[in-house]
């Protein structure tokens, strides 16, 4: 396909041609296919099986070539499928019969098979370009050069076979969706319901072996390993639902395929020592994939590390704000003057947290700071009444209903007060009312008046 017309231009990367788009399409297809299948491996906690299979099929490829003398895809698929399933069977068999830990038996099986494959290839290497380097790295950037014509269309061979594989995978997933989902989460339950988890498992293993072979030609074995796990893990950080996870993993895989190619194109515009630089596209794809995983690990709304820290900080800050309001209210009750920053820090906690909370409270117009003294505004006083009221209602409730001694309720209330919602507060107020004489205002166990809403 000639590099004739630019389709569109992107910043940093430059102009994209029809040629580039084919590469992007190929990379995205690999990413999407591996992403979908990887979800199953991730949930079965067998992620390394992808690594094992993609290495172990080497003797399958070499054996199929030595037996048939051809490098046609059908033979390669057959050889790889057989050895892929064999890897799964041997791993499971060693685990069950010889009681070797599952990961160790996987390690024994695939490394031995790989060694066998390297030996077989060195026999075959006399007259074939099946070299381990190509298997490892893949030549993504050259895929559009090798074309087949289908129904009058000139298509890159790798893209066409990947599209066919995508159809097969989509078909199997559509037909067996329920079984695969159940086996992924709970093989024992699946067996109890009369499904055949082992059969389902080996269907998936065969699919993964097949996809590995089809992907090999374009992207190499390592990229297959990366794409089988990383997009699925990224999706796992973003959602808790299986169907959504597969869709997300496919999208992430496809995106990293495209992104990896663009990164490689971008690196080609760099100059070092006066020469233009280049790199392996397959490597770039797995790097982009890893970056997306890192981003998800940091920023995923529910499971991200930074989001978790942010959530905890927000909670800490709310508690600190409420504690400051409470302290100021009690101070006003006693002496009708404000408190200094250092007094607040002593009562509430770290300086920076108090400073931050005060900034927020001032912006909302709840406190005033004059002559280094913090005072409640009118609005702040109203809010603090609510809060201190909740505190004292809970203390009264604990004493009257649960029979706790009055000197034991304060510490417990100090923690609970931040989590009592307004409707529960109203119920508390009703309940405490019934335990005290009707005419007088409500008081807490320490004899202080409970401020109403």
């Amino acid at each position, binding site marked *: 396909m000639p590099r004739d017309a630019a389709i569109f231009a992107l910043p940093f990367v430059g102009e994209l041609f029809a040629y580039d788009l084919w590469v992007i399409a190929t990379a995205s297809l690999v990413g999407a296919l591996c992403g979908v299948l990887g979800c199953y491996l991730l949930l079965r*906690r067998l992620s390394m099986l992808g690594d094992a299979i993609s290495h172990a099929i080497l003797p399958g490829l070499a054996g199929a070539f030595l037996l048939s003398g051809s490098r046609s895809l059908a033979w390669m698929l057959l050889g790889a499928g057989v050895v892929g399933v064999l890897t799964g069977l041997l791993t499971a068999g060693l685990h069950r019969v010889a009681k070797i830990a599952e990961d*160790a038996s996987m*390690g024994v099986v695939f490394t031995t098979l790989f060694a066998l494959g*390297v030996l077989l290839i060195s026999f075959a290497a006399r007259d074939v370009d099946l070299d381990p380097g190509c298997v490892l790295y893949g030549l993504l950037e050259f895929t559009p050069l090798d074309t087949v014509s289908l129904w009058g269309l000139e298509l890159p061979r790798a893209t066409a076979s990947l599209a066919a594989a995508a159809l097969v995978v989509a078909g199997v997933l559509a037909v067996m969706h329920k079984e695969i989902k159940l086996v992924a989460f709970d093989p024992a339950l699946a067996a109890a319901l009369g499904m055949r988890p082992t059969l389902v498992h080996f269907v998936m293993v065969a699919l993964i072996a097949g996809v590995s072979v089809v992907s090999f030609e374009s992207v190499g074995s390592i990229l297959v*390993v990366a794409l*089988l*796990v990383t997009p699925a893990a990224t999706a796992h950080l973003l959602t808790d639902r299986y169907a959504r996870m597969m869709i997300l993993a496919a999208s992430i895989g496809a995106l990293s395929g495209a992104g990896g190619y663009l990164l490689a194109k971008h690196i080609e515009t760099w100059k070092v020592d006066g020469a233009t630089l280049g790199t392996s596209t397959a490597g770039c794809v797995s790097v982009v994939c890893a970056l997306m995983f890192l981003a998800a690990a940091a920023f995923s709304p529910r499971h991200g590390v930074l989001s978790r820290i942010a959530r905890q900080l927000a909670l800490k800050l709310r508690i600190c704000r409420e504690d400051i309001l409470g302290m100021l209210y009690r101070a006003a009750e006693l002496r009708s003057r404000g408190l200094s920053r250092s007094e607040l820090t002593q009562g509430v906690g770290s300086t920076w947290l108090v400073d931050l909370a005060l900034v927020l409270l001032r912006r909302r117009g709840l406190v005033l700071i004059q002559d280094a003294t913090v005072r409640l505004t009118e609005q702040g006083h109203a809010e603090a009444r609510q809060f201190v009221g909740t505190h004292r209602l809970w203390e009264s409730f604990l004493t009257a209903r649960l029979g706790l001694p009055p000197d034991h309720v304060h510490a417990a209330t100090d923690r609970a007060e931040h989590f009592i919602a307004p409707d529960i507060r109203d119920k508390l107020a009703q309940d405490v009312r019934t335990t005290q004489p009707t005419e007088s205002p409500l008081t807490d166990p320490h004899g202080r008046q409970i401020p109403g809403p």
Partner: protein
Amino acid sequence: MNDFLRLITLQDANTRTVLLGTGSLGLAAGVIGALAVLRRRALVGDALAHAALPGVCVAFLVFRERSLPLFLLGALVFGVLGVLTMNAIRRFTRIKEDAAIAIVLGSFFGLGIMLSGMIQRLPSGNRAGLDSFLFGKAAGMVHADLLISAAACILALLGVAALYKELKLVGFDREFAGSLGWPVGFLDLTLMALLAIVTVVGLPAVGVVLMAALLIIPGVTAKFWTDRLAPHLALAGLFGMLSGLLGSALSAVLPSPNSSMSRGFPTGPLIVLVAGTLFVGSLLFAPRRGLVARWRTARLLQQHIDDEHLLRDLYELQEAGTPASLSTLAERRTWRTGSLHAALRRALTNADVTDRNAVITLTASGLTRAVRVIRSHRLWELYLHEHAGVAPDHVDRDADLIEHFITPNLLAKFEAQLALGDADPLRTGAALGVPLSLHPPGENAR
């Protein structure tokens, strides 16, 4: 033949270097790998070997120099970085260990391939001998490589010897070690650092994937020979060393499969295949834990059970006054194909039974053995009935299974306990002290 002589007498300096290098590497990898397998971290070595690649590239990009020590240093730094990333993913996200290993493996190796692609296009560099880090070139080992791998081997062995007790406890029961106040995390990291050193040193010799094999296979193989850690480690080291020595010896002796290769078979795969052969051999033939030994034990036990069943059937037929023949015996229980004939043959050889005109009778010695079995069977039935309240028609199958394993001591206790119960609980009367069956006469024992 001449080549072979030169090889085994270690006359060729080159061969000597390769043999000693791969041998010491195999020894270290076997010992450290066995500990990693014990810690359920078998595949970490694999990930580590892959994660080291970008280190080699970075070392080349930074120093612009092709020097093995610098490469190894870079590889070590990235290997340790890989282990730390793995731990961080497991610790701080919901991703489990297996996926963390695979993510580090794929991502780091992808980065390495990206960097090595860049190096390849640099005016100054042609992959910088990086390929040998992927596939290994044991046959190309020189004296300096030998010194490095010997040093790594000694370091690894000394490390294991110094921390033996600690690594043992952490390997078997991490929580217990933690509760004793040992720095479990630090010990884990030390083991991983030793693993990283051995892996990185082995990379140029056997390559990425085959290094993982050298770490995992000897450790797993040794498990078939012993249950104790010290012999386990020693054996794993021995198997690793044997794999290294035999593999490189084979590669030097065997003719090259194709003319384009300068010397012999590729060494790395041969080393792994030797290790794999040792594994399969141990899996099959190791005493006690091997599959053949386990199959034999199971078979002997089954034969013993068959023999006792035959004797008990003969006794019960005799008790009922029915003459025993092959067909009446076959009716009494479900024999596996041929097992009745085999049991009968063994009983005849033992002179436990006689066969006159197809009528089979117990001899005196057979009767003694039969009485022991039948007493076990019936006393157990009685015991279940009297003391566990099991209905008489529910006890036979249970007794059928356990009768072969009741020791004389236990039998005496049953007798004493049952005799204390009612007037004549054993309903003996018979001279041989055989209690009467719980089942009505005429009912088939099955």
